[in-house]
């Protein structure tokens, strides 16, 4: 008995580290494994057998188009965010002398506002009798209200609005750490602002740009709320289709197969984007 107690007391660290690991495994890795296995099962009343039919069923144009659409949207959104975020982050990190705290406050605030509130706020602008339409009609630009809501355009705008802070912050963080004297030195040596930016700042902040891009890409790809509320149910995206499979159609196996198909295509797209970005940013030497 004493021996057991001795051994147990030597295992204190094991005792306190296991809960977290078990938690993570139980609630992340096991579910993923489950889904993966389920995607290969044909579930019947009395048992299940291995099958590839689910993957075959979803390997058709309708499903592929949905994934490509989400990928395209994700890439477009991440790129636009990157292009717009860079000048902002650069300005905040390098050019702004005073008022940095205020700028940082307003930069961080969007993260802490409920995402649904973000999306909801656009209702007031985009709705049929919303502000944009009323303004345009009053100015006489249009005669009939535009159908802005329930469209792909609405989805794109709100995605951009929602995820722009996610791009600005990592860029800002890494640009902050940049040694400003390098920039000064470059300018002193006679380089133009843009040359300095493209050949010095850009490659140095590469990791921030990459992490921001990937973050926005992955988040946009799996989005559910924005297409669901602003898309009008007219087009399917990966997020809404997965939800449909698990909640409406209730075909877990096929839903799982689709989930992994999209995940696979996501990984490929991420890898491709990584290569592209690396060439663009670092290749400019």
């Amino acid at each position: 008995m004493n021996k057991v107690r001795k051994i147990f007391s030597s295992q204190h660290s094991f005792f306190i580290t296991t809960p977290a690991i078990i938690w993570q495994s139980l609630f992340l890795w096991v579910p993923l494994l489950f889904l993966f296995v389920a995607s290969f099962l044909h579930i019947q009343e009395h048992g299940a057998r291995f099958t590839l039919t689910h993957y075959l069923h979803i390997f058709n144009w309708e499903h592929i188009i949905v994934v490509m659409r989400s990928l395209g949207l994700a890439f477009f959104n991440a790129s636009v965010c990157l292009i717009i975020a860079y000048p902002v982050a650069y300005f905040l990190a390098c050019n702004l002398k005073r008022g940095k705290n205020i700028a940082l406050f307003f930069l961080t605030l969007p993260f802490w506002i409920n995402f649904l509130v973000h999306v909801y706020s656009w209702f007031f602008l985009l709705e049929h009798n919303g502000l944009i339409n009323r303004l345009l009609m009053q100015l006489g630009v249009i005669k009939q209200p535009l159908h802005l809501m329930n469209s792909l355009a609405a989805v794109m705008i709100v995605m951009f609005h929602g995820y722009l802070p996610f791009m600005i912050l990592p860029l800002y963080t890494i640009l902050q750490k940049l040694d400003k004297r390098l920039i000064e030195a470059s300018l002193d040596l006679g380089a133009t602002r843009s040359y300095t930016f493209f050949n010095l700042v850009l490659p140095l902040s590469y990791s921030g740009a990459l992490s921001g891009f990937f973050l926005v890409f992955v988040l946009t790809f799996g989005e559910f709320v924005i297409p669901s509320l602003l898309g009008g149910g007219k087009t399917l995206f990966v997020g809404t289709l997965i939800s449909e499979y698990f909640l409406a159609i209730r075909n877990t196996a096929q839903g799982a197969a689709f989930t992994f198909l999209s995940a696979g295509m996501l990984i490929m797209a991420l890898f491709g984007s990584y290569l592209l970005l690396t060439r663009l940013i670092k290749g400019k030497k």
Partner: protein
Amino acid sequence: MMKPLHYKRFFLPLFVAAVYSFLYVPMLIMLIFSFNKATLGYAWQGFTLDWYKQLLQSIEIWTVFKNSLIVATAAVALSLTLGVALIWGLNRRHQHILSLFYATIMIPEIVISVGLLTVFVFFQVPLGLVTLIAGHTLLGLGFVIPIVHIRFNELDRRLIEASLDLGASMGQTFFKVVLPFLLPALIASGLLVFIISLDDFLISFFCSSATSQTLSLYIYSTIRAGVSPVINALSAVMLFSSSILVLIFLSLSSRLTQENS
């Protein structure tokens, strides 16, 4: 040579100002409309605080808010406890185990949510606040562990050695030496997990039942049917409380970075 630069001087600040306005204009408008008398339509029909009154009196919203608070608090408590326990107890040799936890951020939340739903249904776990807490703690661990780990690495190991040499037990060393040092990281990541849990939609959507609705779910199901002025008031209140939380968070993280330099 100087004149052209003169224009360009203003371009960037103006651009940044434009971006910031773009980020905040929709919410400001929604804020203004929370005082609008009209129920439907976007014409200004007079100032009113009615919606805020309705907000305060709505039993449903208070219930939902209570649920969100319970889940968020529990998720923070659990993820902080589990995370700190892991980092404190982890052997130097086994540091690579931490990489298990970095995957949470990289996997799309919808995949995590449907996975959780499938497993819960399969093992016949009753869906409710408890399952929400489980899911949110999972998300929380993905933030607590990196943040606390970085902070922990900044702790000079010799302090721990010294404490042990002076006769303190591991437990005492932890509570008297390590924990106070980790405190800023704990508070910062705790706040972060809190807000993530309050904000979360996907896990709540898939893994809750009708009796365990959270704030996000309530907002979603209400605006799915159209615009609702009470939600405006609710959003305004949430905006306000978020601002306060951000101020706390920023002052904490600046204190963290100050200590480093």
